[in-house]
């Protein structure tokens, strides 16, 4: 009984420390980004450029635009994620700060969770900024399906952030980092991206959440599997 209560206290105390460390890491990342705006700016500008290029490439065919719009949005988000992760990694490796952080963490997965949440915040900001532009350029009324889209985008950016953060950490000390990150990240995120593209397309076409339940299930499973897997192996990943 006493041993059980001691274990429980240790667990709760460990969770509190873990949460404090996640919050400290997240606050540091967001404060740095607020000052520099380097990550958001590069992600946003790149996403807008992708939209502009596709807009010109597709032309004025309204029906075609409606069909491919969801794909274009997710491609823009996918590449913006790569760009954001690369910039975030550069900031961590400038003075080897990541090593200092690793020395201070009892449970190193706190670093993963904080980086993942920070990436989600950047992606969310990009989505909020590009959706109105997409609505104007692609002549799509996103307001009509905003509830369903919110769920799809939430699951999508969660998955992209989980997988992206993992590969950003793996490639942080590799020589050809700029090449390795997209080469590892893009193929692994294909199942999630396909599900997100189809779910978004169906919602734009006026379908309900019930109609895209299979895609949502796939995205939830993808996120749970990768999140659990990464928490288990993260300690080995960040080690030199």
């Amino acid at each position, binding site marked *: 009984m006493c041993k059980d209560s001691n274990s429980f206290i240790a667990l709760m105390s460990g969770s509190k*420390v873990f949460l404090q460390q996640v919050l400290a890491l997240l606050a*540091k990342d967001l404060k*740095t980004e607020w000052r520099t705006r380097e990550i958001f700016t590069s992600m946003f500008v790149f996403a807008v450029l992708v939209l502009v290029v596709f807009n010109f490439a597709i032309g004025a065919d309204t029906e075609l635009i409606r069909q491919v719009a969801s794909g274009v949005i997710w491609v823009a988000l996918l590449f913006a994620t790569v760009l954001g992760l690369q910039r975030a990694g550069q900031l961590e490796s400038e*003075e*080897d700060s990541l090593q200092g952080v690793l020395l201070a963490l009892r449970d190193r997965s706190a670093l993963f969770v904080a980086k993942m949440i920070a990436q989600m915040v950047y992606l969310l900001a990009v989505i909020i900024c590009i959706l109105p532009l997409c609505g104007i350029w692609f002549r799509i009324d996103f307001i009509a399906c905003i509830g369903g889209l919110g769920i799809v985008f939430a699951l999508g950016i969660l998955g992209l952030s989980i997988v992206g953060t993992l590969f950003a950490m793996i490639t942080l000390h590799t020589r050809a980092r700029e090449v390795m990150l997209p080469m590892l990240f893009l193929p692994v995120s294909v199942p999630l991206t396909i599900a997100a593209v189809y779910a978004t397309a169906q919602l734009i076409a006026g379908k309900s959440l019930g109609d895209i339940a299979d895609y949502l299930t796939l995205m939830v499973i993808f996120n749970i599997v990768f999140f659990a897997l990464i928490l288990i192996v993260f300690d080995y990943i960040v080690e030199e």
Partner: protein
Amino acid sequence: MMVHLEGVIKRFGTMTALRGIDLKLQRGCCLGIFGPNGAGKTTLLKILATLTRPSAGTVHIAGYDAVKEAEKVRPLLGVLGHRTFLYGHLTACENLRFYGRLFGTKQLAERITEVLQLVDLVAHAHQLVRTYSRGMQQRLAIARAILHYPTLLLLDEPYTGLDKHAVSRLQELVLHLRSVSCTIIMSTHDLHRGLDLYDEIAIQCRGKIVYSGPSLGSDVQGFEQLYSAYVG
């Protein structure tokens, strides 16, 4: 025993960086590890800092296995590496607050003021670190390393970028930390600076500790002869 290494080997692919390191260090001792570039000093300190695992052998710090119980070892360590581990877009105060929060340091605000005073940076506490000179960054890195009252301080080439005044401040700091029973391991290839700070010295060459023994005090010439005899 604060530090106890037995048969530590570290391989990077086909290259062997450490070839069987045995080391014992009592609590409160100051050990200087000397050796030429490529001797494996930094690799040894990284293993002690739990930043990398040994390929073979055992590492115990304060009675904990540094590989299996790394999470218990890390709060005991203060590490000053080749790089400062600081964030250029944060101020000195913000950097220290960040690390203090990660370590869960009690009465953090007072402690930050205290360590900034120790490294003479109080006047620059609210200045962005990227505007600091190299020497100031190194001093702030020292403050970061001692912020959470470590019991084992690992200093890898700590004199890098420091001017004469800052070197003597660092040496004063080492003496102060020794007086409060902090164990210190300092690696350097500088044979002339602060020899009298050490209780013990070790010479490392090609991944092995080729000499270890008590400090020769401030006998620089005697130590140079000893070093030449082992390193060449």
